[in-house]
């Protein structure tokens, strides 16, 4: 069964099969690189331990970077935006309804006037 694979948008083309082939080639290359690594590595030995400037390795749980610490820089960077948008999510049910009514009102004004 001949499945059409080429996705055309009228402006560009996208062929997932080509992409998959390229992806497979990339994986093969990566595999070859991995193959050429040091073969004397042994799992579980001293070689596997992290080297932290000679300090002792902290407990397992401490190493993991928790979710709220991720993207700290990003949120700090557009702090002004977040300070405006986050307080809008008040959690009060009638505020949700007020938003709906305001959208209705504004749409009414737009549609009726235009």
């Amino acid at each position, binding site marked *: 069964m001949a499945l059409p694979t080429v996705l055309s948008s009228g402006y560009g083309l996208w062929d997932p099969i080509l992409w998959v082939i390229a992806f497979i080639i990339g994986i093969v290359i990566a595999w070859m690189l991995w193959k050429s690594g040091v073969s004397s590595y042994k799992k579980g030995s001293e070689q596997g331990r992290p080297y932290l400037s000679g300090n002792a390795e902290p407990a397992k749980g401490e190493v993991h970077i928790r979710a709220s610490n991720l993207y700290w820089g990003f949120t700090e960077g557009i702090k002004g935006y977040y300070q405006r948008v986050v307080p809008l999510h008040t959690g009060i049910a009638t*505020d949700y309804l*007020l938003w709906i*009514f*305001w959208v*209705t*009102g504004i749409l*009414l*004004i737009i549609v*009726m006037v235009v």
Partner: protein
Amino acid sequence: MRKELSILIIVILGVFLALIAVDLTFGAPDNSAMDDYFIRNGQEQAATNNIVTTVVFDYRGFDTLGESTVLFTAVIGVALMYRKLVKGDADENE
């Protein structure tokens, strides 16, 4: 602030809804073809004197199935709210 916004939007919506009082005429519907059909033929087609029942159960019977289902859903929902809890319910609490 919230109070002012609320009153303002109530006024705006009220003004726009007043359109229905201006544009529609009470007591003299513009079009009534569908309902005239019901009133003319409902009694004979469904052998029923009450045209409302004819519409509810025959011409729009499927709506009534939906309507009963709404009530059923609500009742099951209420039952779900007042059910007796068991031990397994607490498993996913923080």
